[in-house]
């Protein structure tokens, strides 16, 4: 029996915009029906990875495989057949929905683009089904996007993304522009749909706390590269890379007693430029634990606790650094 192909495979993906090395060698695999969260701060290149997968931008090098097929070198026409396999939902639904199109037409557009012949009645029925699935009434189809709230618009984006029955959904910060209570309902919706339909998902976000509900695996990105990957449990309970540890320590928890007992980990403010990334480990300029070797030698991905981390202080036997033990005083000045 041959193993099932992964829903998504990235092999050494590179995306340079002129001199800007936005994505610099990212390898990642998402099995069918699984959710991987790609977490990083602004400028880490996480959105660019998503854009490469749907080929909104053409990768500089590397391979993108969707369902086992290399889509990196497909022509536009060949790509069209694969378009229905993968969909994307963006952060800002106001900007990603055409304001002049009725919601029904927005949702039906992937069907039109697929070239599939479908009667008007069937199309309307499918739009109604899809709207129902995301918790909207069928008559929303006859409204314009501006008549809807932010949360409703994001539901429309999700309906549009799912109407072609993709095997892979790229969700690029789908809840970041929404208020807390609305964010909760959209996260719940995505989790329900994912469980019911079983599509694989690359969930791109800057917010680690938002992925705890959804993600099976978490990949942490810093300045164009993955610094750590692992199961959700592994990343939340035993993060190996100093950057992952710092991210978890920096996100405040909504509990004043716990929050004030936590030891702050302060990194310097400056994310180095992707024009001229630091030598060796890219995180070393902000890492409180950096030492000589970090500047000269690029750390390899080391297997640790079922995941992988790229840090000289991580050993295959499970030895991992603890960023909280570092002396932060000079960062605070």
């Amino acid at each position, binding site marked *: 029996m041959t193993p099932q192909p992964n829903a998504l495979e990235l092999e050494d993906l590179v995306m340079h915009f002129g001199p800007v090395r936005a994505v610099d060698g990212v390898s990642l695999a998402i099995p069918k029906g699984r959710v991987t969260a790609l977490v990083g701060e602004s400028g880490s290149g996480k959105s660019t990875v998503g854009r490469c997968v749907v080929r909104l931008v053409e990768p500089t090098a590397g391979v993108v495989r969707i369902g086992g097929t290399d889509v990196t070198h497909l022509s536009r026409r060949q790509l069209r057949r694969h378009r229905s396999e993968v969909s994307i939902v963006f952060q800002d639904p106001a900007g990603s929905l055409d304001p002049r199109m009725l919601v029904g037409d927005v949702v039906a557009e992937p069907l039109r683009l697929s070239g599939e012949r479908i009667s008007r009645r069937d199309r309307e029925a499918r739009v109604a089904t899809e709207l129902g699935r995301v918790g909207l009434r069928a008559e929303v189809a006859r409204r314009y996007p501006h008549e809807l709230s932010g949360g409703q618009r994001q539901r429309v984006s999700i309906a549009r993304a799912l109407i072609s029955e993709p095997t892979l959904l790229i969700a690029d910060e789908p809840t970041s522009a929404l208020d*807390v209570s609305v964010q909760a309902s959209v996260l719940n919706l995505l989790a329900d749909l994912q469980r019911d339909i079983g599509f694989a998902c690359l969930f791109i976000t800057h917010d*680690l706390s938002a992925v705890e*509900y959804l993600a099976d695996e978490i990949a942490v990105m810093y300045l164009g590269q993955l610094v750590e990957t692992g199961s959700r449990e592994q990343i939340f309970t035993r993060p190996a890379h100093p950057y992952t540890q710092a991210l978890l320590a920096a996100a405040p928890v*909504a509990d004043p007693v716990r929050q004030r007992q936590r030891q*702050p980990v*302060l990194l310097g*403010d400056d*994310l180095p430029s992707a024009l001229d990334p630091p030598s060796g480990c890219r995180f070393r300029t902000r890492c409180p634990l950096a030492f000589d070797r970090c500047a000269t030698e690029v750390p390899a991905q080391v297997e640790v606790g079922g995941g992988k981390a790229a840090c000289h202080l991580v050993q295959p036997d499970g030895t991992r650094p603890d960023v909280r033990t570092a002396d932060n005083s000079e960062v*605070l*000045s």
Partner: protein
Amino acid sequence: MTTVESPGAASSVLGAPVLEIRDLSVSFTTEGGTVSAVDRVSLDLAPGEIVGMVGESGCGKSVTAMSIAGLLPSSARISGSVRLRGTELVGTRESVLRRVRGKEIAYIFQEPMTSLNPVLTVGRQIGEVLQVHERMSRPAARARAVELLSLVGIPSASKRVDNYPHQLSGGMRQRVMIAMAVACGPKVLVADEPTTALDVTVQAGILQVLRDLRDRLGTTILIITHDLGVIADVADRVVVMYAGRVVERAQVTDLFAHPLHRYTAGLLSASPTPGKHAGTARLQEIPGLVPVLSSQPDACTFADRCPAADSQCRESAPPLEVVGTGGALAAKDHLAACWHPCPAPRTQPQETDL
């Protein structure tokens, strides 16, 4: 209806309030009609206190903050009172307000890039505040600017003082904004979503700077945010706003340990917190949206989204007062505007001690 204002709204240990807001109401006339943004908000800020104001978009947090030092456009109709150490600010002449702003009350906003002048070095921009308000000479202002930059944690401040805003990262720019805001030693700093546009690792540093300012200079800080994690991190007291009204007010630990208003409780359980719901559990949702009100009804404006609402909630507005929750009375400075406050959580070790 009545709004019960407890004396000792600001912790009496800290002395007379620096800022007293009483029955502040703000409405706007727009093309679509009147919009009531803030409804009879009362709040005291004690010296050296950090008060967090939390709520979702459209709850009136920012409008409240802007109205304190008269930053609202002329289309705003403002009533009520804002007193800065006894001096009334509502309806005061612009020339007086101009002296108050910067010197007595300073602001920082969410987006530091649009608040900084791109063609002036940060040293010139900070220096300008000092030259205007403190009548300092240019060299003296520059020297003070360097000191301020190191106060807010900018490394090699003597070099950074000659940088232009675009040469700095987002976190550095926000630090510059804070340096500029505290240049004249204001009594009150209003920080409106100061870390919302920043990454979490940078946010932690900015919150640390705010705490430092309070500890070192005794600055009173009103921090406005939608993020309960930020509140949990820095605030001493919390004010929860909903649809223009204060719906709950408490010491930070009391609020999180036992939210009384259903909106507060909803916000708390809708916020993802690492380790809190691990894996299978769902986030709690608050159905519906924050209403846009043309006038303030004599009813609880959260009733339509509230699981506990009944006819009383729809017929009369609950006053902001100390409420009992079936036996246990909340702390005396824990107020809520709710007819049916949340029952006390079962596990409260401190309160089982009879």
